[in-house]
């Protein structure tokens, strides 16, 4: 099993009180894979259903953000590789 990787950046180094802060996290893991299973049901007469797809993530990752000041960071988007968080200064 490989270890995950993570990098993070803020949109600015300093903020005024009340200003919106944006944190971008880029993360990944070589073991992480998206697996898609397609299911088709066929009866004895050879009739088939429409395919149904289900996706599973192998070795999914959990992101945690903690802030010394106690501010709460809210995730506003996550592609599985890049997550964006926001908080208020």
């Amino acid at each position: 099993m490989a270890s995950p990787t993570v990098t993070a950046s803020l949109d600015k180094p300093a903020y005024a009180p009340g200003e919106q802060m944006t944190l971008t996290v880029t993360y990944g893991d070589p073991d992480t894979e998206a697996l898609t299973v397609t299911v088709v049901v066929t009866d004895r007469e050879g009739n088939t259903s429409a395919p149904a797809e289900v996706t599973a993530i192998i070795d999914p990752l959990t992101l945690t953000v903690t802030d010394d000041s106690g501010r709460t960071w809210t995730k506003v988007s996550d592609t599985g590789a890049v997550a964006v968080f926001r908080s208020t200064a």
Partner: protein
Amino acid sequence: MTTLHVQVTDRAGHTAETSLTYTVSTPDAGDLSVRVFPHRQDLIYREHAAVLKHLAALGVRRIHGLITPSTGPKTLAFYRTFAAMSGGRVWLTVGEPRVPLTTDDWNRVRSKALGLGCVERVYGWNEPNNKRSPNDPPLTNWVRDTVRHQRALAATFAGTGIDVGTFQLWSGNQAAQFDHLAALMDFTDTDGTRLRPGTEWTRIAWHWYIRPRGGVFDPAPLDVQESRFRAITGDQASPIDCTETGLFTAPNYTGGAVSVTEEQQAALLAPLVGWYRDRGYGMNYFELLDQPDPSSALREASFGLVRTPTDDPATWTRKPAFAAFRDLVTT
């Protein structure tokens, strides 16, 4: 400087971490004051050494006090000592509400204030529209007398380099406050003159507490308040000082305001300062010390950053909000 920790973990418990830092700028300490009004026997809080010790630890560089024609040498020495100790300045409310000053009184006040050498701002009467106790001067003619006091204040300090702020209306009755403001602006004196922004004041001063709505402290009414004040006075330019705001900790209080715990008072202090600061207001925290109150039920006695179970300074202890305030002005 605040540190952010970002951690990513897979199902097997493998982790990767990274940290980064950011800074939230602190308010301009020059516009953040703490109020030290109560006077007894020419002593603020009847005790100077301990009060100055707490002010030094607080790190604040502005205090808001009171000056009257009878202010004595001990109180004047207190202001001077604070300024020398902190490198800061003093804001002064001039006169007791609804007690008109004579020409000689104004000369004495001017001489004392200028003699301090550390006065940055002076303000008109504190809550001239509110009679707190039966012993206070009556409200009869309060509009006329407030207008005249304000005009005399501006004339007395014209050309001194000291900023002149308005009267500080009591805001306990929000609707009445604006009626009172309108009455002041509508008053025409016997010589035909009326109050003029920019002449009778260069700063707007007012008492405005942020009140909770649905249990949440909401700063939005500040904007409504400012708009109404500016509309009534026609003053679109003068900067604003909120000369009274704060959070009180009276667990047995049963009135209509909202008491908070000492922990909440500390936690809300930075947002409170931020709400005023974001609007460009000067802010005066009410106030430095509690007043002794065995009932723990009095609102006015419990806004302090320091607990005062008795008048003996040896019994005074700092609330968590003291450290929160110190961090705001010294970091």
